[in-house]
Each structure stands twice: as C-alpha cells, then as structure tokens.
C-alpha cells in the first residue's frame, strides 16, 4: 500500500517537568481513519496538534521519527509547518460556534482556507461553493453569507469541515468533531467523515467517546496519562479488551439494552405515592412555544427520564418544575399540594424539598468558597465540620477536600460535591440537569452509580434530563421524549426503548453508534 501520510515513533511532549505525552507511535495512511481515544488529560489533543506543529510554545517535543508526508519534520520551523497546514492536513475542532471566527461569514472563512491552499482569487468562489455542497451545506449560494451563530450545530460543523478541506488536504485531523452535537446530528457528521475517508482522505480522529469512533475508525489507540494503553481494530477493543483500563472504558459505556444491577424498586410498595406532578404545562415565549401540553408524574423513589435534543424544551420544563418560571397554563403539584401557583413567599419554606444537580457544578459554586463553606450553607441548622464530613462521605469524597475550592477539584469530585450539596437539604426530589454530560465516560459511570445508590437508600425521586439516550435508559423507570416542546412519546423505559412507537424516537435510537446497541 501507499506510504503513510504521517509516521511518528516515540513521540514525547513535555511541559516543563510535566510529561504530557510519552513514547507514542502512530501512522495514518490515506483512506484510513486512526482514532486516539482517552479521557481528558490523556494527551490525545496534544498529539493531534503536534502533527500540525501547533503545540504550545512552552512544550518540548521529541521523537525518533517524525515523518510528515514522507519528509522528516523534526527540525521544522514555523515557516515549514505553515506550508503543510491547510494544504497537507486540515484541522476540525469541537464546536464551530467558537472554532470559526464569529465575525466572519462562512463564505469568507472557507474562502480564506481555499486561498491559503493556493486557489486564485478567480477560482476561489466556485471552489468554496463546491466544498460547501460536498459537505452537505444546503443552498450554499444563498446561505454561505451566514455566520456561525446563525446556523444550527450540525450545519456550522459542516461549514467548519468544509473550511478544513479548503486547501485540498490529504489528511484531516478531527479533535472531538461531534462532541458538542446532538445524537442524530453526530451520526450525520460521522457519516460525512466516513465518506471522505472512503474517498481517500486520511483521518486522525480524537475523541473521548470509544463508542462513537468505533464504527468509523480502522485502528484505535487508547491513551491514558500520555501513554498508549492498548491499540487495535475497534471491534477487537470493544469485544475483547486486553488491558484492564480498556475493559473499564468499555464497561462504562452506557448500553441501550443492558441495564446495570438495579435495586428492586417498585416491589417494596406496590403503589408508590405521587411526589411531583405537572399537568398540561404550556410555556410561550413571544412567538415560540417552548412547552405545549407537557405532563409529568413522578412517584416516590422513582426516576423519570426526560430525553430531548437542544431546543426541545428540557431546560424550560426543569425551570417550571422548580417553580422559577411560571407556565402560561397548567400547574405543578408537590406532594399533592399547589406548587407552581403559589406566591414565592409561600413556596420558600418548601423549597428545600426540590434540589438541582447542575450540568456544570463549577459555575454553580462560588469560586471563592471552600467545599466546607458550600456544604455548611446547604446543611440545615448550624452544621459543624462533622456534619460536612458526613455529607461528603455519603458521596464518597475524602474528607480532606473540605478545605479546597471548586477549581482545585477534579470534574468528578465537583459533581459529587454538587450532589452532596443537593442532598444536604434532605430533598424529596432531585432534578438532574444533564448531570453527567460533561464528564468522561468512566467518571460518568461512577456518578450514575452514586445517584442510583442514593435513590435506593433514601427513596429520593429524580427527574433526569439529558440529551444522552443511553444514559437516560440506564437510570430511568419512565421516559418522556420531548421534541419542539411536545411530548412525542412517553411510557416505561422498556417500552420506549424496546418498542418505540413514534418515528422521532425511532430515528433517535437508530442514530446511536452501533456499539451501544450491542449487549455487553
């Protein structure tokens, strides 16, 4: 076969004392896709940037072999690197909203890439339109004048890919290209990348999501702490992982048709009482209907999952349940008594019974407060160190964390502290707002297990809102599927996932990576 586009042996990258990458080797050939998979801090993005010479200035890079397009790149200056950027290899980053210059239209951004790739002023416009058409950007003659913020997540990601292809590169480096996208859009973008690969493009794909890369990658390299843990074809890694860490990663992937050990819930009380009930909620923002006739019933000790893509009304529903937003019609009852219809003053006493676990706890903490201050405020009465320590223990966080501030915690610890804070009020209902969406898959699995334990031990009820179908499947008894503010389907988790009735639910399930549908 043809010579590799990129061939690197024993790549090491150091930042001062810290070794970010050590002895990583990889090669990418035309028409193949190599994936670097690992959690945050594994060094995967650092490697991807090094292939374009775009590393941090403070980084020291060394390798025994560094062949870019067959040429030794070890001594390259910025000038040399600029010659391969765009023309030989293009880069696609996570979210086009921030990865395209927000002040420039799609047309100007792609034109810049095309011009940098050597196209003349005259031939550029035609090439730009061709590229946009090729990546499935609709009606490029008219819409390419739009800016990233005016486009949907999927469209602007396509525009970003078009701009990366502008210099007619033979290699595409894609760093988490689908992470910010809804599941069905993610599917489309991955399909686009697969098509480009089949047309002969080499792809170096970087992702935290083993399941997502599995059906496009030809070769997967699992990284941890800058070292290669294991590598091989994706099917081998998924079905017979050799290394314990890979096994852990594979097991942590939430599966659609496999539910982890669940504590028996409904058996103990045959007809659990209703804790929270929302009746025909309708919310209207000027001309936009955010929620239309949405009902939800949450029974004690149970979890209702709310699935929907961005813009489906999930967040509005949460605010209505929390009674921080008034619905135009319909009402919410808490313990069978009025909740949303009360004046705030009357509600305040009972506020502690509903607590929220946010997606990004970092922004929901006061950054200057220590964990102890955060917990002391949330705990009832005058809580001392002992009570705070106990609250941490319940979420399996070591006690010495009490003196730290949110920024000094790992993502998983932060989420645990957020849960501890919510539990401190001894609530009946936990509203989890994309509570695990920002976490690496291993941490995600741990937090889900923690939530499940809390539900079983304390009999707390949960509303679990997420765009992630597989995660919702894991935690929920009942599921509501939201689309454009309407409930398109609802029922028990088994019914909705095993026997979806509505076309939209079916299409959502079909767009999941095949790896998720397989049994464990």
């Amino acid at each position, binding site marked *: 076969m043809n010579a590799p586009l990129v061939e690197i042996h024993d790549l090491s990258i150091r930042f001062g004392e810290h070794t970010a990458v050590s002895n990583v080797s990889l090669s990418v050939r035309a028409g193949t896709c190599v994936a670097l998979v690992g959690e945050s801090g594994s060094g995967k993005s650092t490697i991807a*940037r090094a292939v*374009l010479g*775009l590393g941090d200035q403070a980084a020291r890079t060394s390798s025994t072999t560094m062949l870019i397009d067959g040429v030794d790149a070890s001594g390259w200056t*910025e000038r040399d690197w*600029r*010659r*391969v*950027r*765009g*023309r030989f*290899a*293009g*880069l696609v*980053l*996570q*979210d086009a909203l*921030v*990865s*395209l*210059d*927000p*002040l*420039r*239209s799609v047309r100007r951004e792609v034109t*810049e*890439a095309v011009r*940098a*790739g050597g196209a003349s002023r005259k031939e550029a416009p035609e090439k730009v339109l061709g590229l946009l058409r090729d990546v499935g950007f609709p009606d490029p003659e008219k819409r390419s004048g739009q*800016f990233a*913020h*005016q486009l949907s997540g999927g469209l602007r990601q396509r525009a*970003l890919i078009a*701009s*990366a292809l*502008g*210099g007619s590169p033979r290699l595409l*480096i894609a760093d988490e290209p689908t992470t910010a996208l809804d599941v069905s859009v993610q599917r489309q973008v991955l399909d686009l990348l697969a098509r480009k690969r089949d047309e002969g493009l080499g792809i170096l794909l970087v992702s935290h999501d083993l399941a997502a890369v599995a059906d496009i990658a030809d070769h997967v390299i699992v990284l941890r702490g800058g070292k290669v843990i294991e590598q091989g074809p994706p099917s081998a890694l998924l079905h017979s992982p050799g290394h314990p860490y890979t096994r852990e990663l594979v097991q942590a992937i939430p599966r659609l048709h496999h539910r982890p050990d669940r504590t028996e819930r409904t058996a103990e009380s045959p007809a659990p009482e209703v804790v929270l009930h929302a009746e025909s909620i309708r919310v209207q923002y000027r001309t936009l209907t955010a929620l239309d006739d949405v009902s939800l019933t949450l029974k004690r000790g149970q979890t209702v999952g709310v699935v929907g893509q961005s813009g489906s009304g999930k967040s509005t529903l949460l605010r209505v349940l929390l009674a921080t937003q008034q619905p135009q019609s319909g009402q919410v009852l808490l313990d069978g008594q009025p909740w949303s219809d009360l004046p705030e003053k009357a509600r305040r006493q009972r506020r502690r019974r509903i607590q929220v676990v946010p997606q990004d706890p970092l922004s929901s903490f006061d950054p200057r407060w220590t964990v102890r201050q955060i917990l002391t405020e949330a705990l009832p009465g005058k809580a001392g160190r002992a009570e705070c320590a106990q609250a941490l223990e319940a979420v399996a966080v070591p006690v010495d964390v009490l003196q730290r501030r949110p920024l000094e915690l790992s993502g998983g610890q932060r989420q645990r502290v957020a849960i501890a804070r919510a539990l401190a009020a001894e609530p009946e209902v936990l509203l989890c707002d994309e509570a695990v969406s920002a976490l690496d898959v291993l941490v995600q699995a741990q937090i889900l297990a923690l939530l499940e334990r809390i539900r079983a031990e304390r009999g707390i009820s949960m509303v679990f809102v997420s765009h992630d179908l597989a995660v919702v499947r894991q935690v929920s008894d009942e599921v509501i599927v939201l689309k454009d503010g309407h409930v398109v389907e609802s029922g028990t988790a088994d019914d909705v996932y095993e026997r979806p009735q509505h076309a939209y639910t079916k299409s959502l399930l079909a767009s999941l990576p095949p790896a998720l549908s397989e049994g464990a």
Partner: protein
Amino acid sequence: MTSGLQLLRGVARRLAGAVLLLWAAATLTFVGLRALPGSVESVVLGVHLNDPGLAEQVRSSLGLDRPFLVQYGDYLLGLLRGDFGRSYVLNADVTDVVGAQLLPTLGLAAASVVLAGALAWLIAVLSAGAGPGTERVLHVLELLAICLPTFWVGSLLQLGLSFHLQWFPSVGADGFSSLVLPMITLALPIAGLLSQYMREEIALTLRQPWVLTVRSRGASGFRLRSVHLMPHVAISTLTVAGNTLGLLIGGAVIVESVFGRPGLGRVALDAVTDSDAPVTVAVVLIITTAYVLITTAIDLAALIIDPRLRQEAHG
C-alpha cells in the same frame, strides 16, 4: 434588507435619545447658571454695578425682567435657531466666539486620538504574548503615561524638543509643526490606557479556539493579527476609547493653556471663571453633542463589525 431597516430604526431611536439628552443638558445648564451666586447684572456691569439705572437697563435689555418660564422658552427657541445669545463679557455673539475656537480644538482632539489609537495598537500587537518581562516593563510605562500630570509632560516636551533641540515651536497654533507637541502631550495618557486594554483583549482573543483553526489553515501570524484579531479587539476598544472623551476635554483645557493655543478648552475655562453664562451653555452643548455623536458612531461601528449584535437587535 431587514437588517438595514433595523439599523435605521436603531439610528432613529438613538437620535431621539440624543435630542432628549441635549434638551436635558441645556435645561440643567440654564437652571444651574441662574442658581449660581452673583446676578447676571453684576457679571455684565462689573464695577459699574452700583451706578443707578444701569442695572435696570441691563435687565430689560437681556430680558431678565420677564417671568422665568418665558425666559426659558425664549432661550430654548434661540438654541433651536442656533442662536446662543451674546457673551456677557466679550461683547460678541457667542456663535462667533465659540465658532472661531472650535476648529483648533477639534483638530487637536482628532489628531491626538488617532495618534493614541495607532500607538496603542502598535504597542499592543507587538507586545501581546511577548513574555512576562516585556509586559511588566510596558505596564509600568503605561501607568506612567496615564498618571503623569499633563501640564508637567507638556512643559517637559517644550523644554526638551522646543527650547533645547528647537525642533518644534513651543507655543501658538501655526501649522502642523505647532500641533506636534500638544498632540503628543494629549495622546500619551490615552495611548497608555488603550494599549493596556488592547493587550489584554488580544491575549484573551488569542486563546479562542478559532485562532487555532485560522493557524491550521496555514495563515500567517500577520494575517491572523491584522485581518482576524483587529475587528475583535476594535469592538471593545472603541467603547473604551469613547469613554476617554472626558479625559480628552480635561486634557485639552490644560494643553491649550500650556502651549498657548486658541481653543474651546480655554474659552470654557474663561467662561466658567467669569460666569459668562451664554458661552458656558454653548460649550456644554457642544461637548454633549460630541459625546452623543461619538457614542452613536461607536455603537454603529460595533453593529457593523459584529453580526452577533445585529442578531440581538432583531430579537
């Protein structure tokens, strides 16, 4: 089409606000000056105040014997016609007094702002990300430029470049060479302020993910900074620059005194010290108008540069 219409509507709203602001400024100055101690007659007559009959004569000739509201209405109508009345002290039409001084000050202010902006941009672009040592030195220099008293810097420049080296004239307003020293004096504090701000903005913008995308296309560092970075930094810097107008006016008063230049600054100073109400009113209205024009222009520029702002105006 619609965005053009939106823009027009925005401008119209802006102009309505400007008229309101000018009216408020005119009224406040009118009331304020009437409330000041020392009657108008005493200003006009000076030592002749006690001459019998003269005070009466002045009052009736200035219309001060009429009811307050009638005077106020007359005053507003006059302003609408562009008639600011006559100076109590200089015995000349205010329009002539102020008109003659407007151009030198405008020239000085505009030249200083352009110089300050260019200087700040140059310093900021060259030094952004140059390392902590360079940044610390520049930071001290910028603080000095902001803090040093304008009259002292002006005198120092006169001493060095004018008396000693004889490069530029020390006083007067005769051609460009006499503009150089006042312009530098006035520009320094503004440049210090802007370059500090710009450097931070540039450093922040360079950390945006899209910068990586631009670099990954093989674009040069120069292109990145001049084509991509410039508009981003301009939006926020323009707003700050607009707010340095006060600094500019205060500076102009001092600079015009130090360099013996004619200009609005000196007129304003004299008018306030002499309680010359009509001239004071004119100066206040000119400054207010300038402020309104500049902030409107800056907001429009931001709308043109940043499509995201246009979107918000829609919703």
